[in-house]
């Protein structure tokens, strides 16, 4: 996935001289997760900018650059560090086109690694996607595999609207089924690990049916896609698994069509439960599918606590938690 993201930026920097990359450690070093590795060597210090540790300034500068015709890709080193930039994202980047009636806009992509399961403790594990979905004017995307990561990032860079692009870092190097004791699996053995060398896009705003099934719909995204797959398999359920991929805009039609078909739905995300994106999904599905539902919609999520360092796997919504919800949903009539 790291190479796929790197390739997306590489391709876009070659195709469009206005694409620039900026962020902490992204230049000479190539990023703490190596996602921008080699880009500065190839495109120079003026197009791949190392920045001071000032997230608000990174986003603000990206906005100014965007207004001046560039297409900045800003990296916030961890999603947990994005909060100082939130005024610039919420009040400025998201609203600029609106408040200037279309005269000014900034096509900024903000890449940021999110999620836990890497022993990051409470300041290197958060999944703040729901916060961004609550703001009018920004698109919010989270890929779960290398193929989507590259296609969605190219689409994000080409998009004239701002995009917050969340990268679930637990699956940077391979899919993860929720069991930390199993040997790591590489993306090379996974179907979606196959990434074309050249340019392609995955449209923002389209959900992906990862697995077709008939008994229950699991709506999820990011790291949880594989956890949910494994959980359904572990209890022998024929689940339809939908990878949301894009939270804003949301492909609600694909989701409601599936739930209307199966009549049962579990929503799973790693972020905390209360006011999480699952709440929006649940409400939207209920509005459209109420008369088709055989059971209440259940949500599986991280607990409403910070992500504790020592109790990472008790916190993480692993296979057992997902399987428990699936069983409950299947038992309801």
């Amino acid at each position: 996935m790291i190479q796929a993201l790197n390739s997306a930026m590489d391709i876009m920097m070659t195709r469009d001289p206005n694409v620039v990359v900026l962020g902490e450690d992204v230049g000479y070093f190539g990023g703490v997760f190596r996602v921008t590795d080699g880009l500065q060597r190839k495109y120079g210090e003026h197009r791949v900018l190392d920045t001071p540790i000032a997230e608000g300034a990174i986003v603000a500068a990206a906005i100014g650059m965007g207004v001046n015709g560039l297409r900045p890709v800003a990296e916030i080193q961890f999603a947990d560090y994005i909060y100082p930039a939130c005024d610039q994202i919420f009040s400025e980047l998201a609203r600029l086109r609106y408040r200037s009636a279309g005269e000014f806009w900034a096509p900024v992509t903000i890449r940021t690694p999110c999620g836990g399961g890497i022993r990051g403790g409470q300041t290197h594990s958060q999944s703040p996607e729901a916060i961004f979905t609550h703001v009018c004017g920004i698109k919010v995307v989270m890929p779960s595999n290398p193929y989507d990561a590259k296609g969605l990032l190219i689409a994000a860079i080409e998009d004239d609207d701002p995009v917050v692009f969340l990268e679930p870092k637990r699956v940077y190097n391979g899919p993860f089924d929720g069991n930390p004791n199993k040997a790591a699996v590489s993306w090379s053995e996974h179907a979606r690990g196959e990434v074309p060398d050249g340019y392609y896009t995955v449209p923002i705003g389209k959900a992906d049916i990862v697995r077709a099934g008939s008994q229950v719909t699991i709506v999820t995204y990011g790291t949880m896609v594989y956890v949910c797959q494994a959980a359904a398999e572990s209890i022998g359920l024929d689940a339809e698994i939908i990878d949301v991929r894009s939270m804003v805009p949301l492909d609600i039609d694909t989701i409601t069509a599936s739930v209307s078909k199966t009549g049962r739905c579990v929503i799973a995300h790693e972020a905390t439960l209360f006011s999480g994106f699952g709440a929006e999904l649940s409400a939207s599905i209920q509005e459209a599918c109420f008369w088709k539902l055989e059971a209440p919609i259940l949500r599986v999520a991280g607990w409403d606590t910070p992500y504790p360092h020592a109790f990472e796997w008790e916190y993480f919504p692993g296979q057992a938690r997902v399987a428990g919800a699936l069983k409950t949903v299947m038992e309801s009539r």
Partner: protein
Amino acid sequence: MPRRSRLHTPKPHSRPGEKPDFSYLETSPAGAVPRPDVNARVRDIGNLATDLVRVLDDEHRAVGPWHPHLDVAELQIGLKHMLLTRVFDDRMQRTQRQGKITFYMRSLGEEAVSVAQAMALRPGDMLFPSYRNQGLYMVRGRPLVDLMCQLLSNTSDMCKGRQLPVMYHWAAGRIFSISGNLATQFPQAVGWAMAAAIKGEDDIAVSWLGEGSSAEADFHYAMLFAAVYQAPVILNVVNNQWAISTFQGFAGGEQRSFAARGPGYGIAGIRVDGNDFLAVYAVTQWAAERARRGAGPTLIEHVTYRGAAHSTSDDPARYRPKDDYEKWPLGDPVERLKKHLIALGEWSEERHAALTAELDAQVVAAWKEAVTHGTLGEGPRLNPDTMFEDIFKDVPPRLVRQREQMCSEQT
């Protein structure tokens, strides 16, 4: 002397009912501050950040090394733009009091900052204003009707009814959209300037904020990025002494000048008499040339005074002496340039009165036209459907549905 820690709370030198006292204000005589080469190293020009650059002396003559030697015609244009700003402000203040617009913010006493600076810059330079920079629009020639339509949120409002009055923007005139969130434009201007440098263009970015909002992190972000990348930008702190009711000491101006923050970051800092049109023009010209030559950014502190209320929602009589502005030691920018032109034999009280009347007539005529595009209470009204546009480049299905729902509520 008690030897123990203490908490200090800054206090203005006078409050309502007291005599105005500006003894805290440190000034330099007109013509006294040397003008260094535009390529000077920051460490060699630290005095600029604490002295006060002034050109107009007490006899209304232009003196010293910062004298910009402008043509008489230029000076008269500057006076006209400042006067237009003031006349416009006065009329718009009155329309607010009559209930025709909801809100207004005057720039009384600060007109030289916007007008002299806009005149010293090139048309291609990108301006990132705060909410008290209407003079920029006067210099760059946005029709008054357009500004008024924005104030009225009517059918010709450039903001389509989305913004509070005075939050103008003008892409073609290279003036950025004003945000209600303070100081956010400062680091954005630096990013714009960085992009200009990346692209090899020689337009510079210029931004403004008040001394009050220099307390925001965005001010410091802007300073840091400007310094690190030596961005071609001019950053202006308009120190008008008051952030609503809060004296400039609370923004940190009591211990050290705002301009002195420049050298702290490795940026040239200049403290200028903000009510001296010639001095403001000269330091802006210096900073612009410095930026354009790749010699780095400049922080300019304009020492001025907010002559009017913060906004139409504010009553300064509750926190400062009523006659504070009359006693302000640096005078009034319009009066000072007027007297300078009279001293040169190029202006008179009669011409001044005639120009004032002429500009007032222009403003009145523009208002008559503006209201034909609608007012808050009557006449044509913007289609509320438009509120769903420009959130994204294209209107997504979710917003189409909400728009339909809203329309159904109307019928």
